[in-house]
């Protein structure tokens, strides 16, 4: 028995560099346990740490759903929900309660077991991704404790692995519904998520080549020292990789312009057409948790994680900064959703296979060459200067092209009617 | 081209298949044609360069009164080339309302003829897909006929109310 729990004990003490996970922090700051529980204290600390995440993470969708509705409302010249609570802030709570009380329908001739199982799988694996995301860190004594449930040394690999299980849940939901719309939606989703995992993986790879670790906290540690040490600016290729990653991430979480699996004007509601009540709400929770997770990963990998903009200033262990950066990316996702139309299936696949994947491969090649020129240890600042110069020039050329396109547009779209 | 000239051209070509023209109508006056050769006449109206009726604006069935023993089909034609229009009318008997389709001349006639079949029971021979369009497939009777009596019960539902 003791050996068995010993595994957990070891887990909570896995260290990379000098960081310890949240459970270690809890052991440090919570009062000592009564004697009969002492041998399980590692285990209890782990459970508490998990409990905190399991308790907090489902609240994220609650906030994000309201945020989505408010953001969309302001984009669309409306006020959004205003009735429940001041400024409508309790709206999602009320919706949740309503969904809880709704009848739980299972379509006849559907596969009942899979139908019930699918939402749980999706929710579990979207929440599982949060295990390895560092939300912040705090120094106590000479130890650094990271707000992370498990500081896995294969952190980002683990996240990629669990987030790709979600697609199984989606296919299960589509199949078990015994509805053609759901089936079409889920198969679209499968094709889309499997395809877009490739650019996601490749652009993460180009980051990992630079930092040379898979550990999430290890990646954040290397971005210590302010804005200029963020990985996005480290090489010009990681700058491109960030955008490839973000575009693919939008597709991964099935949001406009890549929301084909749940395209309401085509497939009614896609894979969750037949779901009602709390099971439907679980899909929602998973969707928004996913969205937060991919943005958190983007922040961790490219935008310095919980590290502040200026070196040394990490309020509350960098947690507010981290949440702010993540929410900003979430906002960008919402902004895109309420602005852009939806792509067609073939165009979606074209974008992935003809543009994003070649660009990602080019990125990996570029990072390799960059490292060859500026040395394998690109942590030092000598590569930053050239990198910034290249990025600025590239952005300048890009913006010039964009604005040329815009002004050209206005000139040509009003053709003189041929009389 | 005015309707008298069109009538003249048709008479020249088809002879007695075109009824004499009644010019004293208050409003639009139709050219009455032989129902059995509607498709030939329409093909001529479509093909002839002087006529070039390339658009079928409307195709409607017509039942004038319960006592009337005939149904009519009215084709309103329009030419985008010459900007003239003409109504063509073919009269068929209620017992045996058959006449050839014009679907292969104007594709729009497909749905219009289905509608006339649905509401008047006029059968267009040679139509590729003649079935009810507005009413349910198992509806009985042709509602726009003047002597139509709606059923009391349709699929367990009371019809008149």
């Amino acid at each position, binding site marked *: 028995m003791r050996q068995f729990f010993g595994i957990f004990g070891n887990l909570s003490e896995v260290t990379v560099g000098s960081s310890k996970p949240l459970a270690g922090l809890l052991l440090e700051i919570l009062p000592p346990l009564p004697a009969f529980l002492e041998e399980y204290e590692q285990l209890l600390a782990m459970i508490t740490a998990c409990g905190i995440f399991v308790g907090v993470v489902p609240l994220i969708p609650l906030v994000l759903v309201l945020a989505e509705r408010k953001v969309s409302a302001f984009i669309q010249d409306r006020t959004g929900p205003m009735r429940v609570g001041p400024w409508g802030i309790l709206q999602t709570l009320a919706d949740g309660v309503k969904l809880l009380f709704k009848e739980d329908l299972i379509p006849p001739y559907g596969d009942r077991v899979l139908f019930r199982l699918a939402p749980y799988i999706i929710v579990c694996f979207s929440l599982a991704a949060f295990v390895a995301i560092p939300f912040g860190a705090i120094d106590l004594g000479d130890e650094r404790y990271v707000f992370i449930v498990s500081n896995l040394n294969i952190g980002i690999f683990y996240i990629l692995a669990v987030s790709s299980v979600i697609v199984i849940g989606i296919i299960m939901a589509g199949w078990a519904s015994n509805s053609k719309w759901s089936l079409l939606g889920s198969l679209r989703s499968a094709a889309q998520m499997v395809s877009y995992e490739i650019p996601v993986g490749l652009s993460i790879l180009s980051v990992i080549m630079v930092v040379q670790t898979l550990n999430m906290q290890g990646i954040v540690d290397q971005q210590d020292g302010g804005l200029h040490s963020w990985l996005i600016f480290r090489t010009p290729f990681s700058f491109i990789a960030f955008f490839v990653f973000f575009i693919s991430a939008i597709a991964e979480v099935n949001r406009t312009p890549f*929301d084909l699996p749940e395209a309401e004007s085509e497939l009614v509601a896609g894979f969750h057409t037949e779901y009602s009540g709390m099971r439907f709400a679980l899909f929602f929770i998973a969707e928004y948790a996913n969205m937060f997770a991919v943005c958190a990963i983007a922040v961790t990998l490219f935008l310095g994680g919980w590290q502040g903009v200026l070196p040394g200033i990490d309020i509350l262990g960098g947690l507010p900064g981290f949440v702010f950066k993540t929410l900003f990316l979430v906002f960008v996702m919402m902004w895109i959703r309420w602005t852009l139309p939806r*792509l067609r299936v073939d165009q979606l696949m074209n974008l992935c296979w003809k543009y994003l994947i070649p660009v990602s491969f080019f990125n990996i090649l570029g990072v390799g060459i960059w490292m060859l020129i500026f040395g394998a240890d690109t942590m030092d600042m000598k590569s930053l200067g050239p990198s910034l110069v290249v990025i600025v020039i590239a952005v300048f050329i890009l913006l010039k092209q964009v604005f040329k396109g815009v002004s*050209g547009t206005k000139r040509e779209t009003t053709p003189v009617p041929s009389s | 081209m005015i309707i008298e000239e069109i009538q003249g051209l048709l008479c020249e070509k088809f002879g007695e298949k075109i009824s004499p023209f009644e010019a004293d109508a208050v409003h*639009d006056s*139709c050219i009455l044609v032989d129902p059995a050769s509607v498709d030939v006449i329409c093909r001529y109206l479509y093909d002839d360069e002087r006529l070039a009726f390339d658009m079928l604006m409307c195709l*409607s069935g017509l039942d004038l009164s319960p006592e009337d023993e005939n149904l009519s089909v009215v084709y*309103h034609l329009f030419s985008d080339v010459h900007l003239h229009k003409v109504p063509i009318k073919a009269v068929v008997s209620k017992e045996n309302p058959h006449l050839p389709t014009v679907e292969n001349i104007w594709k729009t006639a497909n*749905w219009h003829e289905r509608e006339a079949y649905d509401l008047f029971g006029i059968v267009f021979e040679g*139509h590729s897909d003649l079935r009810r369009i*507005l009413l349910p497939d198992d509806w009985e009777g042709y509602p726009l006929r003047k002597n139509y009596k709606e059923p009391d019960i349709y699929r367990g539902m009371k019809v008149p109310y």
Partner: protein
Amino acid sequence: MATEESKFIEVQPFSDEMVLSMGPQHPSTHGVLKLELRLDGEIVREAIPHIGYLHRCFEKHAENLSYPQIIPFTDRMDYISAMNQNWGFCLAVEKMMAADEKFSGVPERAEYLRVLVGELNRIASHLLSFGTYGMDIGAFTPFLYAFRDREEILLLFEEICGARLTYNYIRIGGVSRDMPPNWLDHVKNFIDYFEPKVDEYNTLLTENKIFIARTVKVAVLDEDMAINYGITGPNLRGAGKKWDLRKDEPYSIYDRFDFDVPIGHDIPRIGAVLGDCWNRYKVRMDEMKESVRIIRQILNQKIPEGPIMAQYKAVRPPAGEIFDRSEAPRGELGFYIVSDGSVKPVRLKAKSPCFTALSALQELSKGLMVADIIAIIGSIDIVMGEIDR
């Protein structure tokens, strides 16, 4: 007699094809259209439209109603542009009544009011089409922008006739009531507000790369095919045919106004070809501007004072028959009326522009994808109330 059995698609056993019933309850079939799709994966091998779910026996009703009583029924045909439906019907009846010497003709003031509300309703209708098309393609925001502006038009209508959707405003011989004081100022305010909005919407949706990718070269309806299918209105103009009844067979007082007839164009920059979804959509955007132009001209002219209703004893059109068409926002709306000189028509047939446009869907949609079907339905801009009558 032909067989009564319904024709449904049959799928070969062990084939890779799937039959999908799209509708009658579906978010983007614009009402209760049912499409039976034979799918090979995402590709549509065949799409058979089934209509009639909104059939309300308009034509049968009309045979049992006097002419003025029919007008509210025309409201319910194309409820998006009810003014133009009223107008189309009244035009046909007035044309028959012209033979009656007791009928004094539509007064000038009524004609001006008709053009005003008709063009406003055209804008409202095209706004709805623009908004729902955006939604069909997946952009939700234009829909609410369109509804915001359409709301202003509905408020104007509410002021002038008390109704917001089914107006019953245009009557045989005139209009039901005169405009309230300051109404023209409200119209002017709206027009001043609305005119720049069209350009805003063009930058928001029309020029959007994804929107262009979704609509350009999709379901090309060329001019010959359009004419053969009897397709009229913006769908025909999108195919490059400059044909508008307001211009080419002017009814009412349209000959006094200066406006263009927007048509589709080949635009190599974005790859648009004549008659594709993008061009059909663009024609509507341009038409809104032309409607604004017409309304501006009315506002700048002095609307003559005088009666708003013609003098007549009763609506008893002399016996005979007539087919008359007018330019509704969705195309040429025709009314075939047979009168026997009594107060009720013997036969009334409404030729709906959407009916003919939808009949082309089967041919247009072959070999496209499911998402394209939605794009086509949106671009031909159908209203099921008018198709099923």
